[in-house]
C-alpha cells in the first residue's frame, strides 16, 4: 500500500529518523491544502477544547435535575428559553451541558482505545513480521480468531459479564482493535526486513529489539497514523453503541450513547433529547474519518481517494 513512502524514507532512516521530521512538515502542509480536512481538524480541536473545558463552559451541572423544566425545547423554538439553549431532557437536565460533558467520555475512549490497540498491534506486527517462524504463525492465527469475533459482541460480553466502567470499555476496545494495526505493520515489515539497511544493521551485531525499534518502527509510522486516526472514530462509535445498549459506561456518567438511548423514548414528543447527542456523535466521527482519509491521501498518493 505505502511502498512509495517507505522507499523514500529508507535511505535516511537507516541512519536515523531525520527523514521522518522533514516529511512530517510536508504532511502538515499537504493536509492544510485540503480545505475539508482543515475544517474537520478545526472541529476536532473545538471538540477537544470542549472536553477539557466542560466544567468551565457548561451552563449547568449536567447531572442537575429540575423536574419543573422537563423536556423543554431548544431556545429557538416556542416554549424554549435562553436558560437552556438546547433544551432539557426527561429529568430537566440541561442538554447543552450534557452534550459538552459527553465529549469527554467519547474522546477519552476513542484516543485511549486507539493508543492501546496501536501499541499492541505494533508490537505484534513488528515481532510477527521481523522474527517470523512459529511466532508469526501463532500470532496470525490469533488474529484470525480475533477477527471472527465481532468486536462489538466481544465487548458486549466482556463488559456485560465482567462489569461496566470507563476503563473496562477502553481496555476492551483497545484489546479487540489490534488486528488491523498488526496486519499492516507486519506486511510493511515483511518488505523492509530484506532491505540493505536492515541486513547491514544485523551484520554489525545490532540486536533484534534495537532493529525493530530504531530501523523498522520509524518506517511504519505513516500507515500507523492513518489506521490510528480512523480507529479513534471506530472506538468512539463502539463506545456509544455499548452505552446505547446500556452495557457500557455506568448510567451516571454522561455519554452520547446513553443520551440517545434515553432520547429514543421521547422521539414522539421531544426530538431534541436524541438529536443533539446524535449530531455531536456523527459530526465527531465524520471529522475524524475526514482527517484520517486526508492523512492517507497525503501519506500514500497512490491510494488517492480510496
Amino acid at each position: 500500500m505505502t511502498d512509495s513512502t517507505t522507499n523514500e524514507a529508507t535511505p535516511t532512516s537507516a541512519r536515523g529518523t531525520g527523514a521522518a521530521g522533514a516529511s512530517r512538515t510536508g504532511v502538515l502542509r499537504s493536509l492544510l491544502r485540503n480545505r475539508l480536512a482543515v475544517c474537520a481538524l478545526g472541529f476536532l480541536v473545538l471538540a477537544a477544547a470542549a472536553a477539557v473545558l466542560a466544567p468551565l463552559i457548561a451552563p449547568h451541572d449536567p447531572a442537575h435535575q429540575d423536574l419543573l423544566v422537563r423536556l423543554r425545547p431548544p431556545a429557538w423554538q416556542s416554549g424554549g428559553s435562553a436558560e437552556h439553549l438546547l433544551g432539557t431532557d426527561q429529568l430537566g437536565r440541561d442538554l447543552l451541558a450534557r452534550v459538552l460533558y459527553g465529549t469527554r467520555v467519547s474522546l477519552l475512549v476513542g484516543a485511549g482505545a486507539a493508543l492501546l490497540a496501536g501499541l499492541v498491534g505494533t508490537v505484534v506486527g513488528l515481532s510477527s513480521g521481523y522474527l517470523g517462524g512459529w511466532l508469526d504463525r501463532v500470532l496470525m492465527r490469533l488474529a484470525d480468531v480475533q477477527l471472527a469475533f465481532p468486536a462489538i459482541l466481544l465487548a458486549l460480553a466482556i463488559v456485560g459479564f465482567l462489569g461496566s466502567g470507563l476503563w473496562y470499555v477502553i481496555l476492551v476496545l483497545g484489546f479487540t482493535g489490534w488486528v488491523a494495526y498488526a496486519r499492516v505493520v507486519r506486511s510493511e515489515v515483511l518488505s523492509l526486513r530484506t532491505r540493505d539497511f536492515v541486513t547491514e544493521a544485523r551484520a554489525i551485531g545490532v540486536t533484534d529489539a534495537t532493529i525493530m525499534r530504531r530501523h523498522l518502527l520509524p518506517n511504519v509510522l505513516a500507515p500507523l497514523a492513518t489506521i490510528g486516526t480512523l480507529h479513534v472514530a471506530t472506538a468512539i462509535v463502539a463506545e456509544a453503541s455499548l452505552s446505547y445498549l446500556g452495557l457500557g459506561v455506568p448510567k451516571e456518567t454522561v455519554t452520547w450513547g446513553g443520551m440517545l438511548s434515553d432520547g429514543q423514548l421521547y422521539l414522539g414528543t421531544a426530538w431534541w433529547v436524541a438529536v443533539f447527542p446524535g449530531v455531536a456523535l456523527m459530526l465527531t466521527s465524520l471529522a475524524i474519518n475526514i482527517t484520517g482519509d486526508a492523512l492517507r491521501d497525503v501519506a500514500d498518493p497512490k491510494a488517492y481517494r480510496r
Partner: protein
Amino acid sequence: MTGTTVSPPSPAATEPPAAGDAKDAGRVARVLRQVALRLGTALLVLFCTATVAFFLVRLSGDPVKTLLPPDATAQQEESLRAGLGLDRSLLSQYLHYLGGLPRFDFGDSLFYNQPVRTVLADRLPATLELAAGALVLTLLIAVPAGIVAAMRRGRPTDRGVMATVLLGQSTPPFWVGILLILLFAVTFQVLPASGYGTLAHLVLPAVTLAVYSVAVVARLLRSSLIDVLSSDHIRSARARGLGPVKTVLRHGLRNASLPVVTVVGLEVGSLLGGAILTERVFSWPGVGQLTVEAIANRDFPLVQATVLLFAATFVVVNLLVDLSYSLLDPRVRSSR
C-alpha cells in the same frame, strides 16, 4: 460449496493416474491440502471461540443469584444449581458442553427454560429476513453507485457519491435508525417505528442495516473499478468500439468484484454488530436482540450459543469468499 470446487478434478485422484496425469494428481493433492488447511483453520477458530465464550461467561459469578429472588434460601439455591448442572466441576461442565456442540446441543436456556436450539430457531428467521433485506438494498444501491462514481471519476457525480459514502461510514447504525424513525414514523407517519411481521415493518430496519454496507461496497467497488478500467484489456475493448457502459459491465465488473468480495467477507463482523444495534433500535425480535437480552440476563448457555453462531457465520462467509475466488478469477483456479 466445498464439494463443487473439489469434485471436478477428483476422479483423477481416485482412479490410478494415467501416464500423462501425474501433474494433474499433484495439483489435486495441492487443492485438497488447501481445502483441508482452510477447514482446519475454520474449526480451530470455532473451537477457540467456544472455549473463550465458555470461560468468559463463568468469570462473572453466579447466575443462580440473578435467577432467584433475593430472599431465596440456601437450599433453594443449591437445588437450582444442581438442576442447572452448575454444581459439577468446571472441567466436567466444559467437556459436557464441548460434547454437545457437534450435535448442535447447547443445553437449556436458563431464562427461557427451553433448549437453546429451540430459542435460537425461534429468533433466527427474523434476523435472516433483516439480513436479506439489507443485502438486497446493498446490491441495488451500492453496485450502481460504485459503477457511476468510477466512470465519472473526479466529476460532481463522483464527489457526491463519495461524500454520501463518507457520511454513511461515519454514522452509527442506531443513530441512522433513530433519524429514520423520527422522519418516517414520527413526522410523516408512513412507516411503523417498531414491530415485526409485514413488509412495512422491514423497511426502516433494513435501510438502517444497509447504510454501512452500502457505503463500504460502493467505496470499494469504485476504487477497484478505477484500477481495472486503466488496464489494457479495457482499453482494447474500448478501442474495438464497445460502449463505455457495456465495457464496464462485460469486462470491468467481474475483475473489480474480487477485492470487494474479500473485504465484504472481513466486514461481516461489523455487519453482525450492526444487526445487533439495528434490532435493538426497532425492537426487532431477532438473534441480535436475543444476544443482548441473554447477556443482561446472564443466560450462560444462550450467550455461548449466540457467540458461537456469530463466529460460525463469519467463518462460513469467509470460507465461501475464499471459494468464490476461483469462480471469479480463473487465474486463482489454475495457479493454486
